[in-house]
Structure formats: C-alpha cells, structure tokens
C-alpha cells in the first residue's frame, strides 16, 4: 500500500519536474542544429519561476472560465500522469481509465483552452481557438484508428495490458502494422502539441500562431500553469510513444532495480525523441494552415493501413 503510493508519487514528480527539462532539451538541440549555442537546458525552470513571481493581468472582458482554464489544464495533465505507465505498468491509479479515457481527458483540456481563447474577445484568441479545435477534430480519427491497430495486436485497450503483452511477446511488434501505427501516432503527437510542421511554438507572429494565440492574454502564474501543462502534455505523449511502441525497460514489477532501469530507459528514449523532434522542426517549414488537414488525412491513411495489415496478417 505504502509502496504503491510512493510509486504513484514518483511517477507524478517525474512528469511534473521532467517536462520543463524535456522542453529545454528540445530547444537546446534545435539551437545546436541551427548553429547557435542556445539557452541552458534548465531555462524553462527559470521561466516558470519568473512567471510565478509576476502579477496576473486579466482582461476585463473575460469570465471565470479564463481564470479556471489554466488550473483545469494542469489538473488533467497531472491526472493523466497518474494513469500513463511512465515507469511501471503497475500504476496504482491505472484503473481510472484506459487509453480511450486518456485521449478524452486531453480533449477536456483542449475544450476549455479553446473557450479561454474566445473569452477575451480578441480576434487573435478566436483565431487560435478556431484553428486548434479544427486540428484536434481532424486528428481524432487518426488517434482512435491507431489505438484500434494497437488493440488488435495486444488484445486490450488498457495501457498496462498493452505494454505487458508487447514486452512478453516482442515478435508481435515486428511487423509493418506496428511501424505504421507508430508513424501515424507520431504525426498526431506533433499536431496535438503544437510542434512544427503544424504550429511553430517559437513564433512571434500572431497570424501564424495556433496554440500561442489562445494563450496570448495569459500572464503571471496563470501563464506559468499553461506553459507547464503544455510541457507535461508533450512529456506524456512522448512517454506513450516510447512505452507503447518500444516497451523495453518498462518495469513489470515494482522493485528498486527495475524502477531504476525503467527511469534510465525512459530518459534515453525521451532524449532520442527530443532529438528527433528537434531534427524534424529544423528540417521542415511550417505548413500553411489549410495544408494541415492534408497532413492529418495522410496520417489517418497510414493508421488505417496499419489496421488493415493487422487484419490480413492474422
């Protein structure tokens, strides 16, 4: 009982404190690839600390939804951190939901963030909300078909069940369907987290913003919460990609040795993904907004192919 609480806490703390580091590593990698020195990988921590010490300025047009949304965003992310098998499959609160419930939990955050974008009554916020929900809506079919593909091979939609099955039978992963599902899910991860080629997280031009435009009005501790929640969402998506598709190293039993191995394995996998994202972001330009549905349609086709190959290879 005590060890279960300790493990849940450990996973939670890892997500809470690891996400700014992940964001920092990606930025540093991008900077290096672009020939700059780049800020320290611990800069995001400094940013959050600075924001927490600043006063909050709230638009007089807004309602309680504007002030409530950052807390809700952070809450859904923290809750997801307890459900996703970050280190171990024996997550004590994993019974709260399976992968479908997890995706809907993310959607809950998106819903409120889009409302907050509309709340201030500025055209930028409205534009950001409109684009964000369009992309989220078009990414949904890909997500669920990719989940279908995984569930077909693993025989279950529960997160720890999937990892257990793949870890026990590595041969299940050695086929085209698995790789295709991974590619589709990776593209969705880029879209949902506002990464290039869908959205540029470092842009300062409002007309090119999607996620940033929605949070344009936030300041102080509210902005700190929003940035932190976005970092946690990226961390959780990459953790899902690592542990569902490449489950080596995930602790199957809760002993100190396996947990340490899991921690190191996750760190290595996340580092590799951070490098991959930095590479993708440096190599491709941002897509025109009305080209993004084509990208998402492409990822949907890839996911559907994954499902079809799974059926025909049974």
């Amino acid at each position, binding site marked *: 009982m005590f060890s279960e609480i300790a493990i849940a806490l450990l996973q939670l703390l890892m997500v809470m404190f690891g996400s700014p580091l992940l964001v920092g590593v990606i930025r540093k990698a991008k900077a290096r690839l672009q020939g700059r020195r780049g800020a320290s990988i611990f800069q995001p921590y400094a940013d959050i600390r600075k924001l927490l*010490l600043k006063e*909050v*300025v*709230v*638009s007089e*047009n*807004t*309602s309680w*939804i504007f002030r409530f949304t950052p*807390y*809700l965003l*952070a*809450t*859904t992310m923290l*809750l997801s951190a307890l459900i996703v098998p970050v280190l171990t499959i024996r997550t004590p609160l994993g*019974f*709260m*939901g*399976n992968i*479908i*419930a997890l995706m*809907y*939990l993310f*959607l*809950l955050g998106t*819903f409120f963030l*889009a409302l907050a974008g509309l*709340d*201030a*009554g*500025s*055209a930028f916020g*409205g*534009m950001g*909300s*409109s684009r964000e*929900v*369009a992309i*989220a*809506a078009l*990414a949904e*079919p890909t997500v*669920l*078909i990719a*989940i*279908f593909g995984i*569930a077909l091979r693993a025989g*279950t*939609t*529960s997160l720890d*069940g999937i990892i257990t099955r793949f870890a026990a039978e590595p041969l299940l992963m050695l086929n085209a369907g698995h790789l295709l599902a991974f590619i589709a899910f990776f593209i969705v991860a880029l879209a949902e987290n506002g990464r290039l080629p869908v959205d540029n997280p470092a842009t300062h031009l*409002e007309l090119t913003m999607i996620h940033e435009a929605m949070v344009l*009005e936030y300041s102080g*501790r509210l902005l*700190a*919460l929003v940035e932190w929640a976005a970092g946690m969402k990226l961390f959780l998506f990459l953790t899902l990609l690592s542990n569902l598709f490449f489950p080596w190293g995930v602790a199957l039993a809760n002993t100190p040795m396996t947990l340490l191995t899991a921690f190191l394995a996750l760190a290595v996998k996340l580092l590799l993904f951070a490098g991959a994202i930095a590479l993708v972001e440096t190599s491709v330009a941002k897509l025109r907004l*009305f080209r993004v549905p084509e990208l998402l349609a492409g990822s949907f086709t890839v996911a*559907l192919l994954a499902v*079809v190959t799974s059926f*025909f290879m049974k």
Partner: protein
Amino acid sequence: MIIDATVMFDLFVVTLACFGAGALGALVTARSPTLARIVGHGAALIGAMAALAFGLAGLAGGGMQLNLPDLLPIGGAAFGLDRLSAFFVVVIAAGAIPASLYAIGYTREYAGKHSLAGMGFAFNVFVVAMILVPLARNVLTFLVLWELMSLASYFLVITEHEREETLRAGWVYFVMTHTGFAALLLGFLLLAKATGTMHFVQWQVAAAHLDPSSRNLIFALLAVGFASKAGAIPLHVWLPRAHPAAPSHVSALMSGVMIKLGVYGLVRVGFSWLGVGPGWWGGTILIVGAVSAVLGVLYALVDADLKRLLAYSSVENIGIIMLSLGAAVLFQASNLPGIAALALIAGLYHTLNHAAFKSLLFMGAGAVLHATHTRNMEDLGGLMKRMPQTAAFFLIGSLAIAALPPFNGFISEWLTFQSLLLSFQISAHTINLIFALGVAALALTSGLAVACFVRAFGITFLALPRSHQAAGAHEVQWTMRAAMALLALACIVLGTAPSLMLAPLEATIFELMSAHADVQFNLTAVVANDGFGWVAPLWLALALIVFLMALPLGLRLLGANKQRRSYETWGCGRALQTARFEYTATAFANPFKRVFALLYRPVKELDIEFHPESRYFVRTIAYYNEGRLIFEDALYRPLLRMIETLAREARALQSGNVHGYLVYILIALVALLILTV
C-alpha cells in the same frame, strides 16, 4: 423484486388521469392565460412524475397487461409493459418532467398572442401519446398513438403561425412524418398478413417461419419508417426546420424524447419482431448511422442559428445511437451475443444521455431566445455575465454532448467505442473494414462535436455582446432555471455513477436478447469484456476535484504572486475594443468550411460598394458564405418536381364529365370482380 400488478395498474391510471386533467383543464381555463399555462403544464408535470415512477417500477420487474377489445377495431387496444418499454417510458418521463416545469415559465410570453389553452391541450396529448407508444402491443394501437403523437406535435410546432417559415417548417414536418407513417403502415400490414396475427408478442415466434425475401422487405419498410422519425440521413430534412420553429420546451421534447421513439422502433425491429436477420441489416443501420453522425455534426458546425445547430446535433447523436444499434444487430447475426448486448447497452444508454443533455441545451437556447429575442449567434455574446446560471447549465450540457469526462456523454461514447473495437473477434474482412470505418466516423464526430460546442457556447456566452439585444439580456425565471438545473444534475449523476442506470439496462437487454452483456460494473468502475478496457468515472471526477483544489494551495506554498489586475484585452496597437473585433460564428467555422467544401459546396459572394467619388473609399462590404443543402437539392427537389409533374398529368382524369366518371366506376367494379373472383 416483485411489484404488485395492482400498483402498476394504479400508476398507469394516475398517469393517464393527470394528463387528461391537464388537457381538459387547459381548455376549461381558456379565459385566463396564466391559469391555463399553470394548470396545463403543472398537470403534465405531475403526470410525468407518475409515469417516471411507473417506468422505474417496470424496470425493476413489474409488468402490466391491459386489453381493451372494444376501444379500437381489428383486435382492440392492447397495452403491455416489458423492460424495454419501461426503459423508454423512463426516458420520455425524464424528458417530460423538466420540459413541463420549463414550459410553465417559458410560455408566459405567449399570453395574449397565442392560445395558451390550445398549447396546454396539445402538450398534454403529445406527452401522453409518447408515453403510450412503447406500451402498445398491437398494430392498430401503435399506429393510432403514433399518429396522435405526430398530430399533437405538428400543432405545437406551428404555434407561432404568424411567421411564414414556421408554417413551411410545419408543412415539411407533416409530410415527412406521414411518409414515415405510410412506410410503417405497409410494413406492419405485410408482417401481420405473413404471420397471421396483429399482436407484437406473437411475431417473434412466427417470424422464424417467414420467407427471407418478404422478411427483408418488411425490415426495409419498418426501418425506413422508424429512421425517418428518428431523423437519420437522408430522411432528416424536417428536423432542422421543425425543431427551431417550435417553442423551446417543445423543441426540447421533440429532440430529446420524440425522436427516441424511432430508436425504440428500430430496437424492436432488429431484436424482437423479426428474429435474427442477415448481416446486411446491421451493416446498413451502422453505415446510415455513421453517415448521419458525421454529416449531422458537419452541418451543425456551420450554422449560425443556435436552435438549428442543436437540431443538426440531434441528427448527429441519432447517428451515434444507430451506429451502436447497427453494430449490435451485426454482432448478433455473427453469433457474438455478449458483444451485441454490450453495443445495445451503449446505444440505449446514449439514448438516455442524449435526452438529458439535448433537452438541457434546447432549454438553454430557449432561455437565450427569451432574454434576447434572437437565435442568431452573430448577434449574441457576453451572456455569461448577464445570465450566469443559464450559462453554467449550458456549459454542462456542452461538456456532456462533447463526450468529455466526467459527464454522461463520455460514458456512452466510451461504451460504443469498446463495442466497436471488439469487432476484431469477427473473422470476415468486409465486416472488419466496416467496423474500422465506423470507429473512424465516430472519432471524427466526437472531435467535430467538441469544435461545434466550443463554438456554440463560446460565441453565444463569452466575451462582449454583439448587439443591443444581447447587451440588454437578463437572467430568466426560476422555473426555467430549475428545469435546467435538474437536467444538469442528471448529466453529472449519469456520468459519475453510470451503474445506476446500467444495471436496469443490463436486465432489459437480458430480457430482450437472452444474453448477458460483456460488461461488468459497480458503483465506481465499468469494465468491458473482462479487461479489454476499463474506466472509473467516479474516481476520475474525485481526482479532478482533488487536484483542482490542491493546485492553488500548491502555488500559494511556492510563494507565487497573488496579485491580480484587471485591464483591457491586448489590442496590438488599436485604440479601443468593441464587439466588432471579436471572432464571429462564421469565421470560427471557416476552417471546417474549407476542409469539407466538397460537402458544403459553399456559395461565396462578396459585394463591395464604393463611394461614388473615389474607389479608394469603401461604403459597404457584404460577404455571403452560404452552404448548400445537398440532400434537398439532389434528392428532394427532383422527387418533388416528379410528383408535381405526375399530379399535373393526373389532373387530366378530372375531366368534369359525368359520363367519364361513370365509366371509371364501371372499370373499378369490373377490376374488383376480377381480382376477388
């Protein structure tokens, strides 16, 4: 639990008596509009509560049989209550209770302009007919009550008959509902003739001896009839016209409850009356459901009329219900009764949930209409500060319909996904592909519904008001708010403690299909197929609340700055903020209009009027971006033109010549003699 038959019968009689008293009372108090609306709708409220008790008792096991042989010809009137009928009575009553409460306050604005006595009478007849339809046990009883329900709702739809569009809406509704009725009549009569009996209960046994082609024909006719009442594409054209035109409490009832009787019919057709059919029955319903779901939400996304948006959203949700119904029929035909039962539970639970949140949303829209006298979202905005409670209830309804945890829509969509994903247990590639596309359609619908209701709630309630009417809005009367509060509470309870209704539903399905559903649940968790998937909604809700309370505390402990200042929205250098700077409803839907232009086929017009002196100065800019309704253009208009042409040609028969008419009579007599001899 054994419930005494006399208790059931007493509840039944009390229900009928209350509605009868309401109908007559409304007519009797015609002189005083206030008394008419309170008596008419108050009696309906009490009657609905009695009906709810009746339905819940039926779900717990109480049955009822009532035969009145002299009331109707050809077999008399026959009523019976089994668990499925009881479930639908519960759905209807659960929708009628808030609607009646809401109507007491809402109809006040009709005093002096329209007959409140007539409205009260029609309302009571409408609700009691809806409650009696699931209880009907032979053909004529069913058809008489069905027609009564349609007529009563027709008169309620055309309440505001001084408006041209309302009359047109009523006319389209009238024609569509009778087309469906014709299909039902034909189907029922063919089935009665083939099985030799008019009684529903005897059909399931007799259906096994039917020959397949006539069974398929009957299935097609009945499915079309019930699908047109439910509002599935392409028989949906009356929904987006009739629901906005009707008064809001009637819209809530029609959208939340009446279209569910189409679902009731489909469940009976798929599982009770015709036995187990071939696979294409389920496949067709599934595909029609998927198409309705996606197209419904796509049309809702681009509509600026708040009530028409909600009507299209009803088409979407009926599509979702038909998706799970079709899956259930298909699973049953593929010999997987456990998963079929799971799919059916998902569909029926969504029926109940939709009744709850759609009624809530329509009531919210009605409150907005009552306060601002406009349904056009382009004229609304800023209502969150002026109508805070209505806004909160509408928000709960939006969260529920977007299927977000911890509300009820999430649970039924989750169950639907689980049943669709379990289709891998079938080993037929075509069926697997159909199910995969069904999953994709449901996922797309889900995402688009989130977008649709961010738009509906955000544009209507948030930021600044876009017109004087919106600026002058104020909160509505307590009866309307109380009705909405009831439904919001239902959404939360059905979402966090789904086992309350899932348990009686499981018993219902077992009675209907003799199969145990592949799902286990207790007060806190729902588990599908022995671990294929699980969710614990109550824990999710509690965890959300705990974290929401812990975060501000944590921030305070960290020493975060507590100050907050209120200032203008950041303007990027502009001088002042007016409502003209806000995003409009049309603009919000623009990305979707472009992505799905193939469906909308938008017609864009840009009229720029320049100052006569110089082309550098613009006087007005008018921008029209209208989507075309493809079903009306491609399907209905040609059909109607063909009928008109036929009718015109047939007019030649009415020559006005008496000798000609005598010849017609002679021909008809000879033909009859030949046919019968």
